[in-house]
């Protein structure tokens, strides 16, 4: 299957129109599901900036997801700040955390990078549980009301759609910018990039900080959606989910994490309603997908497109 860039944009516009029309067509259950897919997809895209484009393996982005969520929840519940200001500030708190960790790990590679990020997210998880005066500890923070305009399934859905849409646009600009292409070069050969005047460590650091910002936005959105937050949002399994959506959808592609988020969310919803052994079922299905579609869903489609173009050129 060969798609021109124009075709891709036409499909994107059609999908967007469908997303806008859906609340008026389908039951509330599917709108909630779609909201979760959008939020998970955004978090996955933030991870993919490092994983797919930067060639790193971040296993601790749950820390920033939770930081954005807890920042929003705590500020809304415990301060008199205007809700709009809280929603804007929360991702920056996640980004500040990313700036600290990024400084520590920008020089690390592979195994050490993955272990440090994992350790950091578990540190955040522990702090959340051990500071009950701020975070309510293991009980989490519930009953978070954002503002009157953000009540009701459809309003929350449209808010998330707009925010995720803006973030996707910004991420699109970033990955196709000279900075984004420098990241790809670092992924392909970090030694060579040093010899073409690209500061590998600084580029990886900035990418990490930017990624943590968008992950923090996803965490904030989940508080808007679920009206609460829990320590598990910082647990390493959440980080694994974010990496998983990139792999399922295609980590060398832009849209892969969104597709991966859809696959994982729908799988999870379907299997939990059918069997109590849903982790086993999901695990088996994911293994099959990874074995049969190693490039992910979108990655496979793009590979066929490139091969088709090369065949035509011959």
């Amino acid at each position, binding site marked *: 299957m060969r798609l021109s860039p124009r075709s891709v944009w036409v499909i994107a516009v059609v999908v967007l129109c469908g997303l806008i029309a859906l609340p008026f067509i389908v039951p509330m259950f599917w709108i909630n599901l779609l909201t979760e897919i959008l939020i998970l997809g955004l978090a996955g895209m933030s991870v993919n900036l490092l994983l797919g484009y930067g060639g790193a393996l971040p296993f601790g982005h749950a820390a920033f997801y939770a930081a954005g969520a807890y920042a929003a929840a705590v500020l809304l519940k415990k301060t008199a700040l205007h809700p709009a200001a809280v929603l804007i500030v929360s991702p920056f708190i996640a980004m500040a955390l990313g700036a600290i960790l990024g400084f520590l790990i920008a020089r690390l590679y592979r195994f050490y990078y993955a272990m440090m990020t994992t350790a950091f997210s578990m540190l955040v998880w522990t702090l959340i549980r051990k500071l009950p005066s701020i975070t309510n500890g293991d009980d989490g923070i519930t009953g978070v009301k954002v503002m009157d305009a953000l009540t009701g399934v459809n309003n929350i859905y449209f808010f998330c759609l707009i925010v995720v849409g803006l973030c996707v646009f910004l991420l699109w600009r970033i990955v196709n910018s000279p900075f984004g292409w420098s990241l790809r070069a670092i992924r392909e050969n970090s030694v060579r990039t*040093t010899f073409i005047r690209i500061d590998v460590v600084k580029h990886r650091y900035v990418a990490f900080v930017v990624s943590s910002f968008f992950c923090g936005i996803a965490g904030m959105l989940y508080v808007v959606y679920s009206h609460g937050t829990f320590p598990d949002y910082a647990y390493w399994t959440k980080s694994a989910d974010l990496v998983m959506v990139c792999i399922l959808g295609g980590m060398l592609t832009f849209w892969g994490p969104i597709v991966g988020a859809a696959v994982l969310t729908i799988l999870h919803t379907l299997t939990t309603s059918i069997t109590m052994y849903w982790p086993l079922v999901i695990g088996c299905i994911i293994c099959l997908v990874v074995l049969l579609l190693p490039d992910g869903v979108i990655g496979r489609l793009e590979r066929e497109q490139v091969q088709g173009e090369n065949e035509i050129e011959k």
Partner: protein
Amino acid sequence: MFFAVKELRKWFGGVKAVNGVSLHVNRGEICSIIGPNGAGKTTLFNLITGFIKPDSGEVTFLDEEITGRHPKVITEKGIARSFQIVKIFPRLTVYDNVMVAVLAQQGKSWDLFGQAKKYARGECHQLIKSIGLSGESRRLAGQLSHGNQNRLEVGLAVAMKPKVLLLDEPTAGMAVEEKAGVLATIGQMTKEQGCTIFLCEHDMRVIFEVSDTVWVVHNGEVVTHGTVAEIRGNDTVRKIYLGEKN
């Protein structure tokens, strides 16, 4: 002194990879370095370009000492290199490989929101044409033939618009006609851009065709240097490298 190396030394345990090498390169010339395998040529390039740090010695460029500086800093000063084992970006197309290098040379790698593909199109295509890969610009670099990957490797170095270009066996594995193309590019660089070339090669025909000066290295030390004619007639060089019958 335009470019000079003084008593450069690098030992790896008991192995004297580079053992007190001193040489100089004049502005605008094509200077070659030859020697048998294991003579220390690539190690010397690695020391000059900051890939590895020397144990002692000095590297100066335009009267500024650059010994052991970070490779990015040395590249910014005007020294670029290609690698013996190609270090290209295999999953990017030829165009994208060149584009990344050109944009980095223009200082645009920190542009987070511009559209990279809209910048420097003409320059990228011109560079791809100069390295003879016009018909391959949309092919993934990892799918190129070995010879074309070598061309791309040279192109990435040329994109830095260097004052000194270090080429480490740029024609390795190439057919005769392919080598001619690379030599033409080298000649063009020197003439049109005033670039100084420091070339490491095993193919003597290439060396003798393009070089102004030749330095001979053996066991990590400089044996002799001179013009092509002087080196051809040097008995010591014959024994070490060219063989008795030559």
